[in-house]
């Protein structure tokens, strides 16, 4: 029930921001943001209540993973909104949140991990990895936003996208912030995963395909950040790399889940 309510609140926020995009109404803007904040709170409450009812960290079903993904995407947006006040970013993030929410509905009973996840590290590793990935996804969405706005400026289209979407430099800043935050969280996820593997799995996890692929993903973003710092990337290159980065992450996850872990 609470999960349905959360999904409904996210959906309402999306519809309101979509209407605001076309009608430019301050009331719609305010209500969409209130709805977004409420959604994130409800999402958090859903996870906590499920934790209480399961008496273990909710991470053993696909439903739980997707619920957590929704939460981190929502939280990521709220952080960026507080920092940059750019509401139309939610227009790109919310479809992913809603898709994850619908996916959660459809996969409520799919269990992907039968063993009891009681270790301390799962409380750190999983949220950090999902949080990092959520921020990488947001940075890729900022990349898409950059290309959309850049196209408007190059082609001199002064329509709704030009008017409503942020300036190019602001999008670049949003991208930088998301990529750095994602990298820090993801690094924490990788490190805690390694420690978890060493303690729980007697070191055998170190050579597991899952960890190797996660490490490859980490390396990709590490290289992006290093190039950015040392050589300097143009905003366009940064946008392209963050899109390529998230595609590689998704391919890695897909590959690990469907082929290597079978």
């Amino acid at each position: 029930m609470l999960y349905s309510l959360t999904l409904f609140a996210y959906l309402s926020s999306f519809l309101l921001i979509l209407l605001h995009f076309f009608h430019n109404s301050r009331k719609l803007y305010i209500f969409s943001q209130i709805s977004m904040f409420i959604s994130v709170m409800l999402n958090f409450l859903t996870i906590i209540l499920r934790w209480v009812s399961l008496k273990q960290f909710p991470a053993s079903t696909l439903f739980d993973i997707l619920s957590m993904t929704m939460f981190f995407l929502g939280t990521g947006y709220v952080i960026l909104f507080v920092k940059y006040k750019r509401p139309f970013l939610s227009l790109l993030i919310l479809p992913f949140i809603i898709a994850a929410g619908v996916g959660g509905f459809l996969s409520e009973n799919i269990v992907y991990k039968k063993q009891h996840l009681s270790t301390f590290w799962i409380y750190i590793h999983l949220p950090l990895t999902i949080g990092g990935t959520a921020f990488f996804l947001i940075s890729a969405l900022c990349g898409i936003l950059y290309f959309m706005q850049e196209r408007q400026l190059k082609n001199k289209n002064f329509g709704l996208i030009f008017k409503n979407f942020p300036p190019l430099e602001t999008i670049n800043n949003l991208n930088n912030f998301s990529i750095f935050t994602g990298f820090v969280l993801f690094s924490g996820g990788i490190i805690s995963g390694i420690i978890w593997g060493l303690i729980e799995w007697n070191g055998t996890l170190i050579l597991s395909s899952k960890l190797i692929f996660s490490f490859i993903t980490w390396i990709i973003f590490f290289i992006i950040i290093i190039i950015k710092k040392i050589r300097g990337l143009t905003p366009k290159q940064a946008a392209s790399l963050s899109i390529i980065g998230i595609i590689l992450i998704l391919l890695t996850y897909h590959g690990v889940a469907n082929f290597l872990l079978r």
Partner: protein
Amino acid sequence: MQLAVVGLNHNTASVDLRECLAVPQEKLEQIYTNILANERIYEALILSTCNRVEYYLVTDDFLCNIESVLKIVAEESNIEIGELKNHTYTYCGKDAIKHLFKVACGLDSLVLGEPQIFGQVKDAFNFAKIYGKVDRFLKKLEESTIKIAKKVRTETGIAENPVSVSYAAVELAKKIFGSLKNKSALIIGAGEMCELAAKHLSSTDINSIVITNRTFEKAENLAREVSGIAKPFENLKEYLMDADIVISSTGAPNFIVSYEDVKSIMIKRKYSPMFFIDIAVPRDIDPKINEIENTYVYDIDDLKSVVEANKKAREKEAVKALQMVDAAVEDFLYWIKSLKIVPAIKGLRSYFEQIRETEIKRLMEKYKGSIDEQLLNYALTSYLNKALHTPLTNLKNLGVSGDKYTLAEAVEILFNLKGE
């Protein structure tokens, strides 16, 4: 009492006539005194800007009193009253209130949605308080005018999009760079268009403005005006390297900024974005530069299309604003109607209060010493308040509707006798 307005604006009178009729601050006291000498004009407000001169009057006979104001204006400006009438408009009651609201919101301005008029309307009210007469009607009108003007500005996009070429150029730069805080601008030329753009830029938080011109003195003059730096024209390519925004408007017959120049500069700049605004005809900046990564070139036609798009956007927002103005006018009319009810409410209350006092006096004399006066007073006051609560509330709520009832119907409604 009603509001009436007589005035002229950019649509009805030429700038010469508007100049003639404008009321400078030093003449306000005298004009207000002359207008308010008419006993049937209770309150007055003069709004005088470069685009309009309007006299708002609170009066009970608007036709006669507007005539008297026109005579004063004609005498003051030495213009024939007949000639004056050809250029003026008059509104009364609801239309006058709506007109003022529209003026304050910038809906009647030459540039739709321009923000300066709101400040001018506020100043006019302040001057009216000092030199003229502002009573209950104009006080409420001022409050409502400020409220609707603020509402229109915050809830519609009427003032959001720039409608002048130079302002649009600066706003476009903000669409690329966001804040101009750490950015540098290079202005090539020192003509009128460059001057306007430079002034708009200097009003932002831009880091530096470099001005270069074939005639160095002109560059120096403009640099002084906008707190910029003047540099000789010969080293133009050097300045391009450090500029994020380039605005050019010279009389050169060929391109002065070429594709090859910018291509090599962009490599050195590591493709850090550059925004070129070419306001010159023939053009100064090679349009092919727009093909280079992270460079954006806009010419005068592009800027004009931005301005046209913005004008259309403002017109669209004006429809929303007008709806808000209509609602505000209705609210104000409701307040005016409620004014008529106030004496009736006061009269009714004092009639019953008088009866209460007489009764207390009579009973105290009749039952001297055996009745507690305080208790009696308390009981009768409490009874009075309860008995009058329903009719007074109904009178306040329904009395402004203007509907006509028979006496019997009115009693039924006032005392809620049908129990609805």
